[in-house]
């Protein structure tokens, strides 16, 4: 059975890792009840989320192209 990742599957790795980092950041920010938690959520988690989602969408579009 060929289990080697195709191009699209490989291109899911980076957005996936960014999204895991974003989700983990959000999780930490929710467990940390301090005003800095909001900054962590918005400016660190938000960047990871946006980058992950945009890269995922880009990987979908580029795969079709």
């Amino acid at each position, binding site marked *: 059975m060929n289990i080697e990742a*195709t191009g699209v599957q490989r291109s899911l790795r980076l957005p996936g890792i960014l999204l895991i980092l974003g989700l983990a950041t*959000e999780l930490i920010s*929710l467990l940390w009840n*301090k005003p800095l938690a909001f*900054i962590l959520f918005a400016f660190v988690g938000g960047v990871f989320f946006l980058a992950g989602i945009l890269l995922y969408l880009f990987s979908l579009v580029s795969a079709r192209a």
Partner: protein
Amino acid sequence: MHLPTPGALLIALLLISVILVAMIVFRPAITNSREGKMLAFLAFLILPVLCMFWGASEHIDRSKQTQFCLSCHVMEPYGKSLYVDDPAYVPAAHFQNHRIPVEEACYTCHTDYALYGGLRAKMEGLQHIYVQYLGTIPKTITLFKPFNNRECLHCHLGARSFESNPIHMAIMDSIKSNQMSCVTSGCHDTVHNVANLDHVKFWSPVQ
């Protein structure tokens, strides 16, 4: 039966999302099938967007809590002033008699009851965080702008106890137009008064 809190549900959703994304990252062959592609779409787009909006809403709700405002060291005396045993202290009287929601005491009086008032409060909150961690905390803390009577009238206007006071009725136009301030024109001028906290008695709520 105890229902899980929205915060706990969000944490559960975050964990599920992490597991799904990790599954696709480490076993990319899952996405070969149509169902796998749909799962990837759910894990990489739908769930993260949902988590982001829900998380933002949770953080915004949390930032309204009295405990949140008082978690900065500089705000401690203001929190303490809510327990002064003197009805002349306006915030203390409101807090102790539950005239405002005690869980959101600071936010209730210090938010701006106008369009985008909540948003403005959040932007000012970000400025507070900046000053707390990167700026210089002033020795005397003052409001960004004079306290607007609108914030008082939001609850008091139309209330029997407020309108049955002949003085309020006589100067109502001045109150509404902010020509006279509720808190600085000599009527209700004992507000937090944190400089005087060493000389007052405190009320202890019965647990």
